[in-house]
């Protein structure tokens, strides 16, 4: 059990540059990714606008902030990328945020770079991670795709952003584990609960693949990607939950029933207060995870599991309460609440549920706990 305080001197203090970054991304989203745009894109075949995506990578340059400069990135830290993930989550930016920014890019960074990495960072190509996880942890036993003669065969199910240009695929090469870059494969788009976050099943049949790592190196890169993905997903959850809290508070302050704003009723006000607590806890744990991974100040698995267990519950609860506190209008297609509810449910289920991360926390903290002294129990 980690007994350290687990927070460094600068943790939770955003630099002026990070505050500028947040403002710039928020302004871009307000202007270019407003709700009508989100709705138009979620009804489209691709589910996102490649030109808009390329602007995020090129003009704004926010898709590879934690990528070292020599690998084609901005040379910043994970906290920078988390700030962007939070703002993307608040706006529900459609596109391969999770597949490319949170998973494929960190995987390639963990490998020390790759020829496709710069194009993913620039937004001219998209990427996704086709790796089976169990509760957010890589499980080599679940790998069913096989490699033979430089080509892959098999199926990867429910690949987030699986329509991407470039797939990073875990496959078995004999008894070894291999990690491959693949551009082909037959992609079958799935109809998803959250139409702003797409998935596909990918079928490989002797599909050409380029080996980028094998054995322990492959496993390390995949594990690193899932950790970073968990931290960035948590930041996205914070962004969505905070946006919903603001939306709900604004509505409760103006919606009149019985001749008064519904927010003046304690039943409504207290639920809003509980939403505030959830959002604040989510923010603390998500940014702790980002800082811990960036600076190595805490057990990375524990920090990410704390964030995921907290943020998954918080975002879902806040989204459900948003629907409830909006009453009938909150249940309509035209209101934005359902867009966030569906994202909240999806985020909670991906990269390990809250329960799966509590399981991890229990392994790390409770199963290793040893009695120190005695807590007195009265015996009558």
């Amino acid at each position, binding site marked *: 059990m980690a007994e350290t305080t687990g927070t460094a001197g600068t943790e*939770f203090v955003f630099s002026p540059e990070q505050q500028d970054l947040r403002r710039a991304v928020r302004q871009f989203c307000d202007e270019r990714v407003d709700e009508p745009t989100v709705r138009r894109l979620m009804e489209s075949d691709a589910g996102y606008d490649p030109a808009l995506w390329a602007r995020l990578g090129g003009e704004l340059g926010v898709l590879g902030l934690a990528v070292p400069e020599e690998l084609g990135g901005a040379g910043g830290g994970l906290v920078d990328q988390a700030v962007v993930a939070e703002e993307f989550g608040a706006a529900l930016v459609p596109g391969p945020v999770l597949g490319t920014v949170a998973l494929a890019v960190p995987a390639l960074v963990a490998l020390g770079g790759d020829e496709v990495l710069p194009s993913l960072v620039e937004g001219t190509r998209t990427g996704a991670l086709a790796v089976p996880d169990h509760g957010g942890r890589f499980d080599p036993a679940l790998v069913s795709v096989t490699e033979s003669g430089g080509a892959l065969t098999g199926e990867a199910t429910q690949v987030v952003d699986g329509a991407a240009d470039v797939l990073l695929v875990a496959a078995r090469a004999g008894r070894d584990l291999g990690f491959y870059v693949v551009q082909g494969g037959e992609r079958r788009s799935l109809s998803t609960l959250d139409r702003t976050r797409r998935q596909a099943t990918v079928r490989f049949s002797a599909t050409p693949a380029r080996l980028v790592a094998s054995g322990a190196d492959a496993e390390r890169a995949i594990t690193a990607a899932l950790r970073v993905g968990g931290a960035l997903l948590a930041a996205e959850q914070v962004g969505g939950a905070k946006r919903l809290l603001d939306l709900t508070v604004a509505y409760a302050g103006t919606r009149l029933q019985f001749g008064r704003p519904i927010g003046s009723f304690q039943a409504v006000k207290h639920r809003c*207060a509980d939403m505030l607590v959830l959002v604040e806890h989510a923010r603390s744990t998500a940014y702790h995870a980002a800082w811990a991974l960036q600076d190595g100040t805490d057990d990375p698995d524990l920090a990410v599991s704390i964030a995921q267990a907290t943020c998954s519950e918080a975002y879902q609860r806040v989204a459900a309460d948003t629907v409830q506190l909006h009453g009938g209008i909150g249940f309509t297609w035209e209101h934005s609440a359902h867009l966030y509810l569906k994202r909240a449910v999806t985020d909670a289920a991906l990269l390990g549920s809250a329960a799966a991360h509590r399981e991890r926390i*229990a392994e790390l903290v409770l199963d290793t706990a040893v009695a120190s*002294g005695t807590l007195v129990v009265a015996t009558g």
Partner: protein
Amino acid sequence: MDDSARVEKAAQQVVETHDPRSVSTREFLGACFDAGLAWVHFPEGLGGLGVSRGLQAKADAILQGAGAPNPFFLNPIGHGMAAPTVLEHGSPELARELLRPLATTEHIWCQLFSEPGAGSDLAGLATSAVLDGDDWVVNGQKVWTSLAHRARYGLLLARSDPDQPKHRGLTYFVLDMRAPGVETRPLRQITGQAEFNEVYLNDARIPDTHRLGAVGNGWRVAMTTLMNERSAIGGSSSVRGAGAIADAVQLWAQRPDRRTPVLRDKLAALWTRAEAQRLTDERARRSASTGSPGPEGSIAKLVSAELNQDVYEFCMELLGPEATLYGDYSLRDIQRHEDYRGPVQQRFLRSRANTIEGGTSEVLRNILGERILGLPGDLRADAGKAWKEIPRG
């Protein structure tokens, strides 16, 4: 010499001339007061050096490093709440009379605010204060008064004008707890112990020189006291897994016979919530120190109170039938901090007060909703009315 060096030098001199391990507590704390180290931000001659409050930590580190007693633990209400209130609202003569014996712990202080009829609605309190010559005559009943039985002085909030709306008719006094007409009785709580007291005031007389602030201005003075209560409570950085959750993990570790997978998940959820709040406290400290406090600092009391209760409920569930046993219900007068050292079952019972004391969770949620989120206030039955017209009961 800059302020920091002044504080450091003063503290080192006190430690050199008054070894806290050999002189009495009173003598040592008196030396600290005379050196301006009781509250460094207070004026010189009144226990301070007139320097920034932030330098107190520097002084305390040197003093306590040499084995000095912590005056806040010995006289919590006096040191943390009464002193700043007396300084800000009392006359200079009164401050000179009261602060030194307060600082040395010769005089323990208590706070006489809550009443049986005025808990969350403190401003509705009914204890009356009527001017009679140079004295005020006070009648009423106060409750939840810790340390009243040991206190020499009490911070008293009383109603001096029932014809005014409730916030405007209050006046603030320093009450001599040994004055005739002041009677203190222990208040037995559900643990069987008596951490608190009731104080009955029957024609107790207070000289007008012991009034703090103007007549009718008591509410504003009380805010000084309560704001210092909050800053006295929220302070030090915490360690992962410390606090009430440590009890649950300890019990989990010492009782493998009682473990089940369901309880394990419950405990993991509690641990995670405790950690989320600890990180939020850290974040609040950082934002306060950079001068941009946000909403993160406002949720601590609400969360920790409910978390404490959930933790001890978990402990009781883990214990199974043993949870139904108890130790000693005999009436005992205890110090607050000792309470938490009792058996698990007693800690469980004590935790029921956490969501009531220092602001009920219901009131705290109103505050979060209205002051932090900006939601509209509730309709009020007492707005603008003279206090005596407000229904009570």
